């Protein structure tokens, strides 16, 4: 049976097709490959941007030119040719007045992704923003939200309609100079989502954005800016898919969350970019900077289920600036075949009585490499800070790797920090126990792995939890050993 687990099951998974690997044949507009000031001006002018934003882009570009692509992560890949990428691709018809205007091909794409807006409108009450190849295509539920003063729209629209808010917060959590990819994104981002929840408003529905890379030879550089004003609450979901292509595609996004006094943001991601084929060819390079700042008594909770991408480099983080603020990070990262993931979080405790929790579950299969990298930093002034970290790794085959790189930096004697990590093989005794109860090996493994990730999956909103569990099972069907 152990043989079945390690070989046949692994084979089964290798052969598992990427479900979202279709392309959509819609007319699109793509600017020439390459990156220089002119291209940036072109992007900016296409979007009819104000001067300050063009300046922001150009300044970022200058910074980026001075920076080097980081190589400290535990991943190996052919560095992208940044001049070989088109930095702007958009479905030709950009603005839809109503749902009926949306290109039928596009609607088809969305329903293939299981996110039919029509259906969602009727049934689930989730407001969706759909971003395809960097451009926001459709946002539903806008009117209903606006009654509460909630702004939920594409980033481009926000720049036109709410420039003051964008200007006030853009780049305040992730500065342009933060890192190589953040600088690149700040220079070339084409669209993304914008959300503002006014003071005291609890957003009554889940807000959701689906990102999709469709066009070949493009990169996706979306920008998300989410502001929860004092005592506001929002739960935000993000899903990602891309067509199956032989070449590597670059996705370098920036997400900034601002949780003002007493506010709470719950940000959930199910990342299922194309992981490449079983030989490790193709797949998305997912180099993402996600960070939130918590003011007094505020809370940010990141939950991620990462199953896709050829290479992932991603550390959703919390700056716990305000006293009594709370940061959470719940993560499941699955790697299979030749995937490489270096992911984790940073919890920066600056305020007093700040609390953070990190639960990370890594699952490595095939020949993949899966690393947790996390920083817990307690500043000198952060009295009574608390952190609990649990990071567990599960190994499915003898050809994969599971690595843990925690950084714990403490400058305050009143802190209580606990870090625990384990790495082990999936329990043979557990599998045997299931088998003896008549549950076959593949189901047993699915059961055990889902149980192993339960603490994280439980944190997802219902709409996503089911999808995530399915995704996990698909990603691991047979992968396991």
């Amino acid at each position, binding site marked *: 049976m152990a043989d079945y687990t390690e070989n046949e099951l692994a084979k089964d998974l290798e052969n598992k097709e990427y479900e979202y690997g279709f392309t959509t044949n819609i007319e699109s507009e793509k600017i020439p490959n390459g990156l220089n000031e002119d291209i940036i001006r072109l992007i900016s002018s296409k979007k009819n941007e104000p001067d300050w934003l063009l300046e922001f882009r150009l300044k970022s570009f200058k910074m980026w030119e001075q920076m080097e692509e980081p190589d400290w992560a535990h991943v190996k890949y052919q560095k992208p040719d940044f001049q070989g990428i088109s930095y702007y691709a958009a479905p030709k018809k950009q603005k839809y007045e109503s749902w009926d205007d949306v290109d039928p091909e596009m609607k088809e794409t969305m329903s293939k992704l299981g996110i039919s807006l029509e259906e969602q409108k009727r049934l689930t009450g989730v407001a969706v923003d759909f971003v395809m190849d960097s451009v926001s295509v459709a946002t539903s539920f806008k009117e209903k939200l606006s009654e509460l003063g909630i702004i939920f729209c594409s980033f481009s629209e926000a720049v036109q309609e709410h420039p003051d808010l964008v200007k006030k917060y853009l780049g305040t959590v992730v500065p342009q100079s933060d890192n190589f990819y953040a600088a690149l994104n700040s220079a070339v981002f084409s669209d993304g989502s914008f959300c503002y929840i006014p003071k005291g408003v609890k957003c009554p529905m889940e807000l959701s954005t689906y990102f999709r890379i469709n066009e070949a030879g493009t990169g996706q550089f979306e920008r998300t800016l989410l502001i929860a004003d004092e005592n506001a609450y929002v739960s935000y979901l993000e899903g990602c898919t891309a067509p199956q292509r032989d070449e590597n595609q670059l996705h370098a996004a920036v997400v900034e969350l601002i949780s003002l006094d007493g506010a709470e943001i719950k940000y959930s991601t199910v990342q299922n970019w194309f992981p490449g084929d079983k030989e490790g060819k193709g797949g998305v390079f997912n180099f993402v900077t996600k960070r939130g700042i918590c003011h007094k008594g505020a809370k940010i909770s990141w939950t991620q289920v990462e199953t896709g991408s050829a290479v992932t480099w991603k550390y959703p983080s919390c700056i716990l600036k305000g006293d009594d603020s709370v940061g959470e990070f719940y993560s499941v990262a699955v790697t299979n075949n030749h995937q490489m993931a270096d992911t984790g979080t940073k919890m920066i405790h600056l305020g007093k009585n700040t609390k953070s929790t990190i639960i990370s579950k890594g699952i490595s299969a095939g020949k993949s490499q899966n690393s947790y990298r996390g920083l817990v930093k307690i500043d000198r002034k952060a009295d009574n800070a608390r952190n609990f970290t649990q990071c567990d790794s599960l190994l499915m085959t003898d050809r994969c790797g599971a690595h843990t790189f925690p950084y714990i930096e403490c400058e305050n004697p009143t802190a209580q920090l606990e870090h625990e990590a384990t790495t082990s093989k999936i329990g043979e005794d*557990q599998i045997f*126990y*299931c088998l*003896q109860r*008549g549950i076959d090996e593949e189901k047993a493994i699915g*059961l055990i792995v889902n*149980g192993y*990730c339960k603490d994280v999956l439980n944190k997802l909103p219902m709409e996503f939890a089911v999808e995530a569990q399915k995704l996990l099972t698909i990603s691991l069907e047979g992968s396991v050993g």
Partner: protein
Amino acid sequence: MLKIQNLHAEIDGKEILKGLNLEVKAGEVHAIMGPNGAGKSTLASVLAGKEDYEITEGSVEFEGKDLLDMETDERAKEGLFLAFQYPVEIPGVSNINFLRTAINEKREYLGQEPISAKDFMAMVRERSKLVELDSKLANRSVNVGFSGGEKKRNEIFQMAMLEPKLSVLDETDSGLDIDALRIVAKGVNALKKEDTASIVITHYQRLLDYIVPDFVHVLYDGKIVKSGPKELALELEEKGYDWIKEEVVNH
């Protein structure tokens, strides 16, 4: 129901079972006793199909089929149940989910429809009472945070849910206090039917005060060296295993 003939099994090149014979018929309860290291738990593992053991000789027939030819889960679906000496913990997987999966797998194997949620829950309520298992435990992760007694009761509860033809109880009494032992035995007795059978593996006679066997076998050095009626267990309790050893040596 079960026919074991000249069974030899080894682990890491060391022979543990050295020509074991045993026949169990429907409606019977067989007790297997023996000193530590005699091969009692090996027999349970071999019947369930644990990979670590290699069968070098002999045959096992279960309901007319070659048991050794089946995968572990197939044996279970055919109606073989092993109550583990050390039940395994599976974090994050609720008892309910675990059992429903197991039951539906078996039903699918037998060409039956999945059990309805309503019937399933009714069955859980009814059968958990049998072993006085707190219904809250049914919602907890499989065996996680259970006391020793609760784990053993959970084994019998699963047995009640899965309705096996043949149950193998591997030292189910070890580590139990007298109250837990009574509850476990009560559950086992309640499940006894004309068309089912049990093999009770134990080191101590006291379990057999509660689960009365039709036959008692003494396993020593990989073989059954003595069989008799239930009184044999009392004799063993009184005289220990040494006289058996002597008897074997003198033969």
